[in-house]
């Protein structure tokens, strides 16, 4: 799907999309929870109100029964009947009924009651009709039956209409409030989801754009600092990083294309020329030797590039151990000393004993090797005369400082930043052997070991300084040792460290 047709499709399916958003689902879930909660609260209130009303009715009935029973005790059944007849006519009266022991009605305002009601003394809820009313709709009442002396029965009750009315009010309130919650909730969720959806869609569109090849696209930041903004900031930072890596890779690809094509072309030309012109087996042999040498150079470039790539991916760190860096530095100085002599340079080595770092021996060795190799290649003084390449290692606080210094032309300040890039060679004529990978590799190794790489002016010449975190245990820093370390170097013109 392309970014262009994504927009109309989005419009068309906006509602289904809306229902699928996280914001909508969350809001819906909240809505349900809130509605359940509201229903629970209303239900609780209703139940309590009913209980309160029932209690009230019950105590009213009890009071009346006691009063009537008292009247009966004082004035007999006749007096009771009179009182009931009188009370029955009052508006909003309670329900009364007095019967003989055999169940004949004597007085009262209740007409139809379910059969058997009078047989149960105590409290019950019944359907009834008043004597004055037409029996179209039975009412509910809470009644109590009291057994009078001599078998007469007295029924007193209160209509439950009030309670029912309250129930209706509460049910109606519940209905309305739930409806309101639902409507408001829907509206809120639609609003929230749409807002979030809009921003997410913005992100998706940016992502689509980037997939389509617009690598400059970035997600808009609203500036509210909310979680979506933070996500957008991080995504943008990630995109920037990817962009940098892509640019770096592009540059490397271009450089590889150039630097591998050159020797490949040479290789091909040589082979072709040998085929065309060589007459004797010896000439062919020489051409083949040349071809193999070119191929070996190509392999070296590949290996160096692979190594740099692995270093930059930080994938070598599992092979770290504690190293005696002093031994490595003096060993390398010793390895290169004859070569220096052959190049007309003297190599001096000033190494404090037993310096320890944590690292990968072969990588550190390769890095130092590259630096010394560079110093020997480019470190001859421009005016001629005896040049010196000075290799040193010493403790500097909680770091180990390694340095390789020469008296060659050095590196101009302006170029110091870029010599660590791959395939950068300051020797524009490219007359000296090399691929411009040596310092990139050194930089990669130093970074992997958590160190710092500095290029300094050796006035004249170049001084490359590597600072690496010292490993434990720290060498004993006694004055005597420091003195002996300082005095080791100079009287050793051959540069071979004293063992």
């Amino acid at each position, binding site marked *: 799907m392309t970014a262009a047709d994504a927009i109309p499709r989005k419009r068309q399916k906006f509602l289904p999309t809306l229902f699928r958003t996280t914001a909508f689902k969350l809001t819906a879930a909240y809505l349900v929870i809130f509605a359940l909660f509201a229903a629970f609260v209303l239900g609780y209130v209703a139940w309590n109100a009913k209980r309160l009303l029932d209690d009230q009715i019950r105590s009213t009935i009890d009071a009346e029964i006691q009063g009537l029973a008292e009247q009966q005790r004082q004035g007999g059944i006749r007096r009771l009947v009179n009182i009931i007849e009188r009370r029955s006519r009052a508006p909003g009266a309670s329900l009364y009924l007095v019967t003989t022991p055999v169940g004949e009605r004597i007085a009262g305002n209740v007409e139809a009651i379910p059969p058997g009601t009078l047989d149960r003394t105590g409290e019950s809820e019944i359907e009834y009709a008043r004597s004055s009313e037409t029996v179209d709709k039975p009412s509910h009442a809470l009644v109590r039956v009291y057994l009078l002396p001599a078998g007469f029965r007295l029924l007193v009750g209160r209509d439950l209409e009030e309670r029912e009315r309250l129930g209706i009010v509460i049910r109606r309130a519940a209905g309305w409030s739930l409806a309101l919650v639902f409507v408001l909730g829907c509206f809120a969720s639609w609003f929230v989801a749409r807002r979030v959806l809009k921003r997410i869609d913005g992100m998706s569109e940016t992502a689509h754009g980037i997939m389509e090849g617009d690598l400059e696209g970035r997600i808009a930041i609203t500036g509210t600092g909310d979680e979506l903004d933070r996500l957008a900031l991080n995504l943008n930072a990630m995109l920037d990083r990817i962009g940098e890596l892509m640019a770096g890779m592009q540059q490397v690809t271009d450089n590889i294309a150039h630097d591998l094509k050159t020797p490949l072309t040479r290789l091909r030309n040589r082979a072709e020329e040998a085929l065309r012109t060589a007459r004797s087996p010896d000439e062919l042999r020489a051409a083949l030797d040349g071809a193999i040498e070119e191929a070996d150079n190509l392999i*070296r470039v590949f*290996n160096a590039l692979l190594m740099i790539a692995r270093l930059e991916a930080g994938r070598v760190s599992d*092979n770290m151990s504690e190293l005696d860096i002093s031994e490595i530095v003096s060993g390398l100085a010793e390895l290169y000393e004859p*070569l220096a002599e052959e190049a007309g340079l003297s190599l001096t080595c000033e190494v404090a004993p037993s310096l320890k770092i944590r690292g990968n021996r072969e990588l550190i060795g390769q890095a130092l090797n590259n630096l010394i190799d560079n110093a020997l290649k480019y470190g001859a003084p421009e005016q001629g005369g005896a040049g010196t390449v000075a290799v040193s290692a010493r403790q500097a606080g909680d770091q180990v400082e390694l340095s390789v210094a020469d008296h060659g032309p050095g590196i101009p300040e302006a170029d110091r930043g870029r010599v660590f890039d791959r395939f950068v060679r300051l020797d524009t004529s490219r007359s000296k052997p090399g691929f411009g990978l040596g310092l990139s590799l050194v930089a990669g190794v130093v970074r992997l070991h958590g160190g710092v790489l500095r290029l300094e002016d050796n006035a004249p010449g170049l001084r490359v300084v590597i600072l690496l975190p010292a490993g434990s245990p720290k060498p004993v820093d006694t004055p005597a040792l420091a003195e002996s370390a300082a005095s080791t170097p100079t009287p050793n013109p051959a540069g071979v460290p004293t063992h």
Partner: protein
Amino acid sequence: MRLLIVEDDAEAAAYLTKAFREVGHVADHAADGLEGYAMAEGGGYDVLVIDRMLPRLDGLSLIRSLREQKDDTPALILSALAQVDDRVKGLRAGGDDYLPKPYAFSELLARVEVLARRRGAPASEPTTYRVGDLVLDRLAHRVTREGQEIVLQPREFRLLEYLMKHAGQVVTRTMLLENVWDYHFDPQTNVIDVHVSRLRAKVDKGFEPPMIHTIRGAGYMVRDSR
């Protein structure tokens, strides 16, 4: 010398068997790990040359299985993985040497011959190496030629020691760098040549015949040419 080459790339295998046969060795070929294991188990080989990535059973597992069977035939691992860790893994699995691809055949041949010789050698190293009139006393750290003492730097002594230990065999520059200096990286220059020529100046100058020979396109060899 009988060799088993376990390599799945038919062309590389054909090249190797042909090259080894040309220099007078017997070379068999297995095209995958299981076949290689079966053939190696049959025994009778002096050296195994094993590609690291093989179908059915990879090279490291093959070597590990052999070592579990108490088969200690020297094994050289060939691998396109050339990084430091890969070499360490290869040696840990029981390999005796590790050569990254692409390699020069001369390098492979020199290493295989050293491995084969090591197998036949007695368990303890002799205390004295003797090639013609050149004598190296490992205990006294003394080198003499025609009875005259030659004074060597410690590293020069170890260089000559390694060359004399493998007298009559080609020793490559990488082998010297690995065994004398214990460096497993690429110096990209002819450092080793300079050291050997210094050693040669001390050992061969003023004596006849020369002992340290340069083998073109391969490395060096100490040999009494009389």
